C-alpha cells in the first residue's frame, strides 16, 4: 500500500530530520540551560506521540483499506479505552508542564545579588545604561528626551548623574555575575533578543519590563529586535560582549557618565553659541 508507506515515511523522515538537522539551537551563554532541558523533555514526549499516532494511522490504512467484500466493524464507543487515553495524555501533559512551571518560577525570581542594567529601545537603535558608582539607576521620563539627553534621564535626580550612558555602542556584561536587565522603550514595542541568552522580553513604552540572566561564557553576541517595530525592524542591531572581570572593568573605566556627557554637551553648545555670535 503506497499511501500507508508514504504516511509512515513522513513520520520516519521527520524523526530522521530531527536527528540529523544541522539547524539546532545556538551554544548557550547563560544559566538558562534549564529551558533547553525542558525543550528536550517536550521533544521526547511529543515525538513519541507523533510517531505512535502516525504509525497507528498508517497501519490502519495498510490493514483496513477497502477491498471487495470488506465490511467495517460497528463500534460506537469504548469508554474504558477513551478514559485510559485521556489519563495517559494527562500524565504526558503534566510531565511537560511541571518542569516548565518550575523553570518559569526561576525565570521570574530575580536573585538578590543581581546588578541592574538598563536597555532602551527606540526606532531603530539600542542604548544602554549602567548604574554607576552608587549602584542605582536614576529616574527617567520620555518627556525629558532631548538631543543632549537621548535617554530622557532626570537631570534633577542625583542618582542619575553617575549613570553610565552608552549610545549606539556595545553593552558589556561581566562573566558569572547575575544581572537584571531592565527594558524600556520610548516609542513602540521592541524586544531585546540575544539567541544565545535564551531569555527575551518585550519592551513596552510606558512601563519597565525585565528579565535576568547569569552569563556563563565569554564572547560577542548579536542583539536583535524580536518584536515588529516598523520599517527598519530587521536592521535594529547591537552587540553584547561578555567579559572576564578584568576586561569588564577596563571597559567600564572608559565609559562616560550622564553628568560628563551633559556637561560636555553643554560646553560644546556654549562654544558653538559663543563662536556663532
Amino acid at each position, binding site marked *: 500500500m503506497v*499511501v500507508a508507506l508514504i*504516511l509512515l515515511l513522513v513520520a520516519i523522515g*521527520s524523526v530522521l*530530520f530531527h536527528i540529523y*538537522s*544541522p*539547524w539546532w*539551537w545556538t551554544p548557550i551563554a547563560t544559566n538558562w540551560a*534549564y*529551558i533547553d532541558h525542558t*525543550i528536550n523533555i517536550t521533544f521526547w514526549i*511529543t515525538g513519541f*506521540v*507523533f510517531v505512535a*499516532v502516525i504509525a497507528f*494511522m498508517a497501519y*490502519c*490504512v495498510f490493514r*483496513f*483499506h*477497502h477491498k471487495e467484500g470488506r*465490511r*467495517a*466493524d*460497528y*463500534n*460506537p*464507543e469504548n469508554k474504558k479505552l477513551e478514559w485510559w487515553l*485521556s489519563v495517559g*495524555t494527562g500524565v504526558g*501533559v503534566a510531565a511537560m*508542564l511541571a518542569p*516548565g*512551571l518550575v523553570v*518559569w518560577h526561576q*525565570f*521570574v525570581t530575580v536573585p538578590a545579588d543581581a546588578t541592574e542594567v538598563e536597555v532602551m529601545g*527606540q526606532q531603530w537603535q539600542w542604548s544602554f545604561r549602567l548604574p554607576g558608582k552608587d549602584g542605582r539607576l536614576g529616574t527617567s521620563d*520620555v*518627556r525629558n528626551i532631548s538631543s543632549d539627553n537621548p535617554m530622557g534621564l532626570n537631570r534633577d535626580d542625583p542618582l542619575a548623574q553617575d549613570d553610565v550612558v552608552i549610545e549606539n555602542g556595545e553593552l558589556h556584561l561581566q562573566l558569572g555575575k547575575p544581572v537584571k536587565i531592565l*527594558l524600556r522603550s520610548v*516609542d*513602540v514595542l521592541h524586544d531585546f533578543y540575544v*539567541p*544565545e541568552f*535564551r531569555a*527575551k*522580553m*518585550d*519592551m*513596552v*513604552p*510606558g*512601563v519597565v*519590563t525585565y528579565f535576568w540572566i547569569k552569563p556563563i561564557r565569554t564572547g560577542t553576541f548579536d542583539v*536583535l529586535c*524580536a*518584536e515588529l*517595530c516598523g*520599517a527598519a525592524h530587521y536592521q535594529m542591531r547591537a552587540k553584547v560582549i561578555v567579559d572576564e572581570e578584568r576586561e569588564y572593568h577596563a571597559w567600564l573605566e572608559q565609559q562616560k557618565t550622564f553628568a560628563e556627557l551633559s556637561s560636555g554637551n553643554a560646553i560644546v553648545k556654549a562654544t558653538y553659541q559663543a563662536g556663532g555670535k
Partner: protein
Amino acid sequence: MVDIPYDRIADIPPAEVPEVELYHPRSWWTRYVFSQDAKVIAVQYALTASAIGLVALVLSWLMRLQLGFPGTFSFIDANQYLQFITMHGMIMVIYLLTALFLGGFGNYLIPLMVGARDMVFPYVNMLSYWVYLLAVLVLASTFFVPGGPTGAGWTLYPPQAILSGTPGQDWGIILMMSSLILFIIGFTMGGLNYVVTVLQARTRGMTLMRLPLTVWGIFTATVMALLAFPALFVASVMLLLDRLLGTSFFMPSLVEMGQLSKYGGGSPLLFQHLFWFFGHPEVYIVALPAFGIVSDLISTHARKNIFGYRMMVWAIVAIGALSFLVWAHHMYVSGMFPQFGYFFATTTLIIAIPTAIKVYNWVLTLWRGDIHLRVPMLFALGFIITFVNGGLTGLFLGNVVVDVPLSDTMFVVAHFHMVMGVAPIMVVLGAIYHWYPKVTGRMLNDALGKFHFWVTFLGAYLIFFPMHYLGLLGVPRRYFELGDAAFIPPSAHSLNAFISVVALTVGFSQMVFLFNLAWSLFKGEASGGNPWRATTLEWQTPETPPGHGNWGKELPVVYRWAYDYSVPGAGEDFIPQNQPPRATQVVQGAAS
C-alpha cells in the same frame, strides 16, 4: 460493554410537517445575486473568500521570493515586505478561513444537515454576505491608496500600528480597522442565523445528540465567534479613535520620529489583551469546523461510525469553553505581569487533553474500518498528520518558559501555519471534494484531485516542518533580511531558498485544483444524489443540487444518529438518518 446508540433510538412517528413560508425569488437578480437562499449565499461567500484568498497566496509567493533570495528582487522593499506579511495573515485568518468555514460551509450545510428549509432569518443572512463583500472590498482597496496597506503585522499592535515608522500609517491602518469593523458586523448577522437555526429549526427527530459533528463544530465555533469578535470590534474602534481623534486608549507618552507625541496615559498591553481575547478563540473558530467536518469525512469514507461520538461532542464544547481562558499565552514575553504565566500555561496545556481525545478518536475510527482512499479521505489523513504535528508544537509554545526562546522566531511561524493554516486548509479542500457533487451535481476529476493532494500535502509539510528548526536556531520572524548575524550559518539561507521553491510549487499546484473546479462543472461525471453513500440528511435531498427550500413538499424526519455505517445485519453499509426503523427491518430481513 459497548453501548450502541442505535439500539436506544426510539421509534418516532412520522408527522405532517406544514410547508414553511419562504421568500420565493421572482427574478434572476433575486435568485442568483441578491438571493436569500442559504445555498446561494454559501457559494457567494466561498467564491469571495477564495478570490481574496488567491491574493493572499500571491502575497505569500512574494514573501517567499524575498526570504529565499534576499536582494534578488528589487521590486520588493522592506516596507512592502511588511505590508505583504500583514495582508497575507489578515486575509488568511479572517477573510478566507473564518468566512469560508462559517459563511461558506455553515450556510450550505447547516440547513441541509439539520433538515431545515433555510436559515431562520434569510434576509439578514443575505445582508451578512453583502456587508462581508464590502469588508473585503475595503480591505482590497488599501492596495491602491496612498501609502498602501498597513505593514503593522496582522496583530496590528499599537503604538507601532498608528505611528509614522510603519508603512500604511496614512490610509492603510484606517481602512484595515474599518474593514474589520464591517467584517464583524456582517459576521454577527450571519452568526446569529447559524446559531438560531441549529437551536430552533432542526427537523423532527433531530436531537442535538444526533447532529453530525460538522454541525457541532460550526455551531460551537459560531457561538465562540459571537463572543470573541466583540473584543476585536472594540479594539478596532479604540485604535481608530487613537489614530483619528488623538485619544490615547493604547498610547502612552512616547517619542515619534524624535518629537514628543501628543499621546499619553494609554496602555499598549490593553490592546494585546483585547486582540488575543479575540485572537485565541479565533484559532478554534477556524479549527472546530475543521474538526467537525473531518470527523464526517473520515466516518463516511471509512464506512464506520465516528468512534466515541459523545466524547467528540463534549471535546468540541470543552475546547470551545477553555479557549477563552488561554489568550495570554500569546503574551508570555509581552511584558505583562509575569505571575500570569503559571495560570495561562496550565490552562493552555489542559486544552491538549480534549484535543488529543479528538485525534485518538479519528484514528480509532479508521481501526477495522473499510477505508476508501478517495480524495476527501486522503485530505482527511493529511489533516491528521499536519494537525498532530502542529498541535504538538503548540505544547512547546504553550509551556510558558519554553515559549521564551521560541517566541517571535520562525518556530512560531511554522507552528501556526501547520496547525491553523495547512491543517484547516486540508479540511477545506477535502470538504470541497466531498460536497462538490451535492453543490453542482457533478464529481471532481479524481486523477487531478490525487495529484493536487499529494503535491499540496507533501509540499506543505516540506515547507513548514524544517521551518521549525530555523526557529530553534533563533531566526527571528518578520525580518525583511536576516543580514549579518554570526549565529545564522549559510546553510540556513539554503534552507530558506529550498522552502521558497517548494512554496512556489505548492502555490502553482493550486491552479490544477482551480482548473478541476471549473472543468468538472461542465465535464465532470454526473454524481447522482448520494455518491459517497452517506447517512447525513444533505445527501438525501429529493433534488441534486437541492432546490430552493431543500426538501420538496415534506421535511425529512430523523430516526437515528448520523453515523449508522456498517450496522450489523443491515443490507447496505449505511442507513440514512431519515430512514424509518421499519424500512431497515425489511432490509435486515432481506439480508438474513
